[in-house]
């Protein structure tokens, strides 16, 4: 493999990892703070992608506006969903949570099918991000992919800032380690949960919106991203944002380079990685915490 190809693959790995981080951070936050395992999290990613597709004709090249509107819509949806459905899951055992959120996936898939059909759709990148830059002789690396990585990185930093530097973040961290104490301090824990949930949904949807021009918009995209996210959360440790970041990048690297070197067996690469981590450090790379 020559240097240019190697660089391209590295960039791809980082970009995939960062996108994964956005989805996985929502999942790990929701699990770490509310203790709910949510199989439907991948559906929020799918929601984002379909939002990108649906909003495209109205916004054209106004890309950031489109992202903003999409995120707001997704957050509102998440807020409502927590209120009418997820808040009832907190006292239930894991098996019931698994089955109820599995049923939710079925409902979402069918709603998508009814509202926008089952076709695969393409979403074009905004024209000011079209094309790419030269990397060695014949390789051209798309600007949009660079944008995707940068955007995810910015969001990651913003997330870090919110969690570690704001009052909301402090309440979130406190709520993760001791729910009852936080309640005792007068924090409206239900509203906190609702906000966290809405945030998680928004993160996943944003990832879907950003990914739409890269991977196209298709029915199964929710499930495929979800299971990879589970691998990320297992490797990184539940409730840990830093762990999710490190694990996402690791998974990105293993998956991208796996496809290059192992062709048809590449799909198992990330699971082998997970198996290795389980042998070495079953509790995940980072202990519980942020």
């Amino acid at each position, binding site marked *: 493999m020559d240097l240019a190809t190697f660089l391209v693959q590295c960039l791809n790995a980082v970009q995939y990892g960062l996108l994964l981080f956005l989805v996985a951070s929502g999942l790990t936050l929701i*699990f770490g703070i509310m203790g709910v*395992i949510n199989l439907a999290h991948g559906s929020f990613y799918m929601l984002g992608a379909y939002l990108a597709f649906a909003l495209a004709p109205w916004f054209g090249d106004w890309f950031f506006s489109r992202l903003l509107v999409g995120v707001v819509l997704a957050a509102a949806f998440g807020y409502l969903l927590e209120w009418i459905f997820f808040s*009832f899951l907190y006292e*239930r055992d*894991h*098996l*019931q949570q*698994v*089955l*109820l959120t*599995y*049923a*939710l*996936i*079925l*409902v979402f*898939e*069918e*709603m998508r*099918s*009814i509202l926008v059909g089952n076709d695969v759709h393409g979403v074009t990148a905004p024209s000011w991000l079209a094309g790419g830059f030269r990397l060695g002789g014949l390789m051209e690396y798309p600007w949009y992919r660079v944008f995707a990585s940068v955007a995810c990185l910015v969001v990651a930093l913003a997330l870090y800032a919110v969690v570690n530097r704001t009052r909301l973040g402090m309440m979130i961290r406190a709520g993760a380690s001791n729910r009852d104490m936080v309640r005792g301090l007068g924090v409206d824990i239900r509203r906190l949960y609702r906000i966290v949930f809405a945030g998680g949904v928004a993160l996943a949807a944003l990832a879907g919106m950003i990914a739409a021009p890269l991977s196209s918009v298709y029915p199964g995209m929710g*499930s495929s991203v979800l*299971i990879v996210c*589970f*691998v990320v*959360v*297992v490797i990184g440790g*539940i409730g840990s944002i830093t762990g999710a970041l490190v694990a996402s990048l690791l998974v990105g690297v293993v998956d991208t380079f796996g496809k290059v070197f192992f062709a*048809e*067996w*590449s*799909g*198992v690469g990330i*699971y*082998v990685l*997970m*198996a290795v981590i*389980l*042998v070495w450090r*079953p509790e*995940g790379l980072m202990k519980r915490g942020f």
Partner: protein
Amino acid sequence: MASDAGVSDAVIADVGALPDIGRREAGGWLVPAAAALVVAALPLAISPYGQDVVVRIAIYAIFALSLELIVGAAGLVSLGHAAFLGIGAYATVLASSDSGASLALLVPLAIGAAAAYALAVGALSLRTRGVYFIMVTLAFAQMAYFVAHDTKAGGGSDGIFLYIKPTLVVAGLTLVDLGQRLHLYYAVLAALVATYAFIALLLGSRFGHALAGIRVNEQRMRAAGFATTPYKLAAFVIAGALAGLAGLLLAVKDGAVNPELLSWHESGAVLLMLIFGGIGSLRGAVIGAVAFTLLKELFQSEALLGPLASHWQLTLGLTIIAFVAALPRGLIGLGARLRGAARG
């Protein structure tokens, strides 16, 4: 041992789903035996299509029973059980040549292959607990799915066909020919009865009681001196092996295998069967398999539901939500509640 006398149903309801141990379900083993006899006599009364449905349900009942051993008895929620069903099925098809194969080879092979994967997956997954365990079992099942779906050895997304059904030939005499409908019917029924009896035997043994103890309070088991992980691993492997058996039967019945057998929809479906029937009960596992299969047929039936049939995922999803929310202890739990109400 524990007697029901003096313990009110209100207390039992409070304490949650009781394990099979120390508590006789209504009718003891007579009810399952009678049910088996009824099913054995069914071919006299129902059409070949009906027999087909019964065979399909029976195979899923074996699958559900195998999962009951780890979810209901040991308290481990596995979201990757379909992997073992699929491995048993694929092993069957891959080991069958164009001239068919012998059951004497296929049965141990399917069970062995599934058990081997269960041993590997179990050893790694049991290093985790709770939600991690759920996610890890799902991930390892997905790994198996990818091998079946992507690799040439696995046959790709179209799957592989089984052209000649296996037989059992002893000293020149064809004892069993699974290509014949009635042979398959009674072979599957026999496998179901054997699985049910075997698991019931396990649950009533020291091993089974230890599993129940691990489910109820693993800390106390360790404090008493039980090394709990080997017990859980053994249950996981046995469950995988039995799922492999179900896989073999499914491959034979359908005459084909495809990667969707290993998908998480399949793993989710078998969990749903357990919760429909009621966790912690062998009868519940069988009842759940019946209920789920019939429900899915119902929701997909255009004859009964018209245009709603194409949106069966929606109806199924909403039904599951309503069911789990209202009847967390399944149909068996409902039965117990009705009996309690009738007693006044």
